[in-house]
């Protein structure tokens, strides 16, 4: 029993009225005391997994906390955190909490000039960077803004030789902390008890689709109640195996990995690097898996591409069983009874095909799998459910700790996002906007009374989503209230909706649909380089680049078929008539999509205006001059001739 | 010890040795061009014997036509073996190639008796069985003739190695890639070496078949041939002649001198002992080039 555990044994930890730990720090303390030998964190390092029991986790956190205190992290302050998932980063985040401060994670791919936007709140004097790349970025930021004063880094490679001031390694910080702890016997108790439920646990930023990102402070009580609500609803369980691979700045990772992991005594597995995440996923085989619809799509694509390349027998088996699995799942979801023969066939398929595929993906133990944030394609959804993974959609915003509603096994229907979780109240406003109320919802944005006033009305959160409740209480989300547009003829539609449906085809990675104020609908399509590339290879179509591949007539036809398929279910006035294959994919670096891969419509409409005009003219070709920014910052112009194609209905 | 007996044994031993040397010469020929020790050489001799017998006994050709037919057929078979088996093994570890030839040997030992019958076949090439004496020294006509023919063939082979084709083959044996780069068709040279080696084996098979009858035991010539080839130096044709004589003499005398003492067939062990001693004392043999990789 280490020193930290002895401490908590003596003094306990802050608890809520219902006895649950009041803060994440308290939860870690509880875990250390009650589940001290259980593995809390696992991190892959040079091919093998390093493990920390909860007792060790607590000690790590307390040491780091003391260390942060030594370098001046003050209660109420933010600590900028930037980097991919590392155990040390997670520990540091909780360590900041122990001091009454809070981490403010930033997406690691945020460029330097946008970085200030994420350091607006909480006066972040101290930043935690994963590696040299992020340290460099932070040093740039400091040169411009004077903050952060102290940069703590985890991976010393390349950084050790830096002579910039205020650079501290996590290692060093930990040493400092452990000295502090050694010199002050009461320190541990103090650190465990310092934070309260009302303190901010993490500061997240809204995606900033419009305007500057808002600061969203999730407090400990929000996080803890959100997680406990989800547990009550059966969405989370105790002692899950979690896979910590999502961006730390996304609410999904914070809540589903760190929050739920700590509160529900899970084992949090951190992959070696982002690039090895897929491989490491298989080694972890998590019992609970959260991924964005896109990621599920990618997984499906991976499987399909792999199968297309497989041996004839295996392919035939796959082609035999999977459609049956999907059909069976479809019937199961529709509540129809399943015959013996289908069950037997399903069992055989489970052994022959589904099981191995799940094993390959690392999802063989994934009892609870979730997706959210965007709508999911039916193919993808049914595919994974057909495999036997109980994939469910959930609904929530950063403001709600992402935990508002989720599908309930037994009445899973694709078009809904499920039912409100225990403790969550849902109401539909008169204009169709979804309103939410729950202990997991924050009360206000940080330092933004205007936005707060607009969003938080009478204790209800205005989600900005349009939707309705079905009779059983299942919530249907249609899209953003603000996204509803009309054609010239007055037909209402949400472009995002159509785009998502087109994107469900594995060949299309991104698409923008236009038509607001126009006579009919058109689209700019970005093909999926990998999937189409593979498709082309199998047909001996040679190509050298994305741009070249996208303009191949065969690829044009391929995309045309995809759109025509979507058109089948579109009402006549809302069919897409013309489209163009873009020579590049939409890119977050160009501001065309957000970091969460949402379309920035205004940017696109602006940048590709000539293209859109061409789509609405009679021309069959368009010459597009793209201005591009090279990595050294200089600008250039790239001329591309693109073919405008009609959708054959 | 009866000196006359010794002389008799010695003379017979020399000729027997020459007959062994003919098989060994085939091994040397292949080793020189491709660096492979052909453990199927004994089986090729057996095959040659069988073919000669088959051409004369089954198709009714006179023996002096059957033998050339067998030689031609074996030349083809030798080149085919190289083309379809050995050439595919280029780049494989030597152990694999050795095992391949060993596999061939086992296979041939099954195929020939299998199709032609396993009973001993009589191959009469017209050597009268009557004893032949010079003074009181008995000379075995079969071995005398066999040894002489072998000597002749080996001399022809040595001479041939100085011809144009021979020079090509020597070039190949010196350095395959260098030979290849100056325009020599290395594959063809190696194939021809195999063909010629098979021809020599056939000649040996016929001579031995005439002496002892044709059956699978002809393939046992291998161990003696190996002893000779190693003693003479695996890449030396003249070495084969000398080593053949030495091995023949040693065997013959061992039978006459050692057997009565130890009361057993020392004859076969002579070959083995020669191999071991050669390898321990002078691995490159009497006349071979010293290029064996030592540790």
């Amino acid at each position, binding site marked *: 029993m280490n020193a930290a555990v002895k401490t908590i044994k003596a003094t306990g930890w802050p608890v809520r009225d219902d006895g649950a730990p009041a803060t994440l720090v308290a939860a870690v303390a509880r875990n250390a005391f009650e589940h001290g030998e259980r593995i809390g964190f696992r991190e*892959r390092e040079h091919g*093998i997994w*390093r*493990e920390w029991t909860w007792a060790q986790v607590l000690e790590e956190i307390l040491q780091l906390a003391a260390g942060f205190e030594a370098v001046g992290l003050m209660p109420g302050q933010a600590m900028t955190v930037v980097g991919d998932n590392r155990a040390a980063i997670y520990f540091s985040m909780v360590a900041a909490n122990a001091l009454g401060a809070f981490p403010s994670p930033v997406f690691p791919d945020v460029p330097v000039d946008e970085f200030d936007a994420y350091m607006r709140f909480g006066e972040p004097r101290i930043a935690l960077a994963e590696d040299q790349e992020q340290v460099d970025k932070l040093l740039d930021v400091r040169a411009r803004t004077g903050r952060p004063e102290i940069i703590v880094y985890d991976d010393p490679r390349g950084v050790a030789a830096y002579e910039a001031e205020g650079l501290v390694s996590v290692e060093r910080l930990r040493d400092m902390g452990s000295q502090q702890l050694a010199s002050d016997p009461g320190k541990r108790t103090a650190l465990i008890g310092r934070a309260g439920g009302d303190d901010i646990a993490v500061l997240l930023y809204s995606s900033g689709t419009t305007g500057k990102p808002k600061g969203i402070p999730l407090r400990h009580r929000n996080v803890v109640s959100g997680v406990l609500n989800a547990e009550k609803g059966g969405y989370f369980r105790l002692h899950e195996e979690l896979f910590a691979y999502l961006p730390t700045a996304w609410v999904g990772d914070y809540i589903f990995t760190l929050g739920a992991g700590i509160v529900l005594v899970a084992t949090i597995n951190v992959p070696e690097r982002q690039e090895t995440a897929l491989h490491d996923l298989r*080694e972890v*085989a998590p019992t609970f898996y959260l991924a964005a619809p896109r990621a599920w799509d990618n997984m499906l694509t991976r499987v399909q*591409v*792999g*199968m297309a*390349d497989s*041996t004839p027998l*295996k392919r035939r*088996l*796959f082609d035999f069983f999977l459609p049956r699995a999907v059909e069976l799942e479809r019937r199961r979801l529709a509540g129809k009874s399943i015959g013996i023969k289908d069950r037997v066939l399903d069992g055989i398929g489970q052994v*022959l095909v589904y*099981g*191995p595929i799940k*094993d390959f993906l690392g999802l*063989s*133990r994934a009892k609870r799998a979730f997706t959210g944030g965007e709508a999911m394609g039916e193919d993808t959804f049914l595919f994974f459910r057909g495999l036997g993974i109980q994939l469910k959609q959930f609904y929530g915003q950063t403001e709600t700790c992402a935990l508002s509603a989720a599908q309930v096994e037994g009445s899973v229907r694709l078009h809904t996002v499920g039912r409100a979780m225990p403790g969550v109240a849902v109401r539909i406003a008169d204009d169709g906007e979804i309103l939410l109320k729950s202990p997991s919802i924050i009360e206000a944005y940080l330092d933004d009374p205007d936005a707060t006033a607009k969003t938080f009305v009478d204790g209800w959160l205005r989600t900005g989503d349009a939707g309705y409740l079905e009779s059983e209480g299942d919530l249907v989300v249609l899209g953003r209230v603000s996204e509803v547009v009309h054609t010239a003829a007055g037909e209402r539609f949400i472009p995002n909706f159509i785009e998502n449906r087109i994107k469900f085809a594995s060949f299309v990675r991104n698409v923008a649909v236009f038509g607001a104020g126009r006579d009919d609908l058109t689209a700019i399509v970005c093909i999926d380089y990998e999937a189409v590339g593979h498709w082309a290879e199998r047909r001996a179509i040679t190509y050298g680049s994305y741009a070249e591949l996208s303009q191949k007539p065969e690829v044009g036809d391929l995309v045309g078929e995809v759109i025509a398929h979507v058109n089948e279910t579109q009402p006549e006035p809302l069919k897409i008539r013309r489209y163009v294959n873009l020579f590049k994919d939409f890119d977050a670096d160009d501001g065309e999509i957000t970091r969460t891969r949402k379309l920035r419509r205004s940017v696109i409409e602006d940048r590709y205006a000539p293209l859109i005009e061409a789509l609405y003219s009679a021309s069959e070709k368009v010459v597009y001059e793209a201005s591009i920014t090279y990595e050294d910052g200089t600008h250039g112009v790239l001329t591309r001739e693109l073919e405008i194609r009609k959708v054959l209905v | 010890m009866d000196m006359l007996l010794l002389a008799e044994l010695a003379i017979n031993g020399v000729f027997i040795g020459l007959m062994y040397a003919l098989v060994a010469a085939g091994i040397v020929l292949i080793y020189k061009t491709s660096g492979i*020790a052909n453990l199927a050489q004994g089986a090729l001799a057996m095959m040659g014997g069988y073919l000669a017998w088959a051409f004369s006994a089954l198709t009714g050709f006179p023996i002096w036509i059957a033998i050339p037919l067998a030689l031609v057929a074996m030349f083809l078979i030798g080149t085919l073996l190289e083309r379809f*088996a050995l050439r*595919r*093994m280029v780049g494989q*570890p*030597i*152990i*694999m190639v*050795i*095992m391949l030839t*060993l*596999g061939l040997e*086992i*296979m041939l030992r*099954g*195929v020939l008796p*299998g*199709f032609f*019958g*396993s009973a001993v076949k009589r191959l009469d090439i017209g050597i009268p069985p009557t004893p032949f004496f010079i003074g009181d020294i008995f000379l075995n006509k079969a071995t005398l003739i066999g040894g002489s023919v072998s000597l002749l063939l080996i001399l022809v082979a040595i001479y041939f190695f100085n011809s144009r084709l021979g020079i090509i083959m020597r070039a190949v044996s010196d350095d395959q890639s260098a030979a290849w780069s100056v325009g020599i068709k290395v594959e063809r040279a190696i194939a021809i070496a195999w063909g010629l080696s098979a021809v020599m084996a056939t000649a040996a098979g016929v001579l031995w078949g005439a002496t002892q009858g044709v059956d699978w035991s002809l393939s046992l010539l291998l161990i003696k041939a*190996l*002893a000779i080839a*190693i003693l003479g130096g*695996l890449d030396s044709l003249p070495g084969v002649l000398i080593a053949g004589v030495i091995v023949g003499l040693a065997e013959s005398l061992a039978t006459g001198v050692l057997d009565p003492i130890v*009361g*057993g067939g*020392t004859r*076969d*062990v002579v070959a*083995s*002992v020669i*191999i*071991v001693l050669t*390898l*321990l004392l002078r*691995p490159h043999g009497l006349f071979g080039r010293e290029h*064996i*990789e*030592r*540790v």
Partner: protein
Amino acid sequence: MFYRRAGIRHTRYQDERQIWPLPFDRRLALLIFLLAIFAPLLIDRLYLVSYLLPWVIWSTAALGLNFLMGGAGQIHLGYGAVIAIGAYASVHMVRAGLPFELAMIGGGLLSAAVGMIFGATALRVKGLYLAMATLAMQYIVDFVIIQFPAISGGTQATLQVPRVSFLGVEVTGDLAPYYVALLICLLVTLFMLNLRRSSFGRALAAVREKDYAAAVIGVNTFRYKLLAFWVSSFIGGVVGSVLAVCYYRAISPDQFHLDLSIQLVAMVIVGGLGSVLGSFFGAALILFAPILLNQFFGFAASELGMTISTDLRSHVPLMLYGAMIVGFLLWEPLGLAKIYANLRNYFLVWPFRHARQ
């Protein structure tokens, strides 16, 4: 389909080098082990005594030879002689009243001692020349055994093996010999499986790949080559004693002729150089193919009316035996082990074609 790899992770580098990292392989190994243990209950005694028992023994021998050929890269065409030494030595020891356990080790030690002499040649020459040297030594050992009635067992040249007991169990009947052979096989198998993970195995591999290079990186090639011969010969000697006591029960010189050596080399080649599993496969194929083929031809002749001359019929096993060696070398030089590996890989990446997608 059978192989599940999700959730396998290691917290220590040692774990990554375990013999069977995949649970399926572990389970398969366990299953095979259990099948081997309970074989007497599962199969007819005919198959136990005349198939499984020799298979176990020959596999052990093939493992011993594979250690030398695949592990250390030394050719040995005289392994039969090594086995003979072990067999004769241990039987004489047993007859002299030594317990079987000691005699077995004694046989192994004597084989190892003589094997070192074989190995000494390897220090001088290698490759083809080593093959010749070991071949010659096979003849010499044969000669010695035959020529000394004291060794071979008198005029009848047969040594009956007296009743012995192993670890307190009398080695008679059908079961005890099988279990003794199985135990030895298991020990040798475990040794071989762990070899690759040991510094000894790595040193041998270095010697095998290039002895100069091995010497340069500090491997004492002299020592390791001799050691390789020592170990391999020791195994051969132990197998010899098992062969004599558990299987032949009476030994005579012709049981250990060159044929045996070639048979074992063929097992190693057909099974796969350097492969533990391959040794078992190779032993099975080389041992049983002639028997089964012969039975098949008997069956074809009597039941299907296939008229094949006796000569042809009886030589077919020999032909195929040779053809198998040739065929494997030409088409699958890595032997049955490679075929198994391909098959395993087929299922390992199931349902995909490649491991990475």
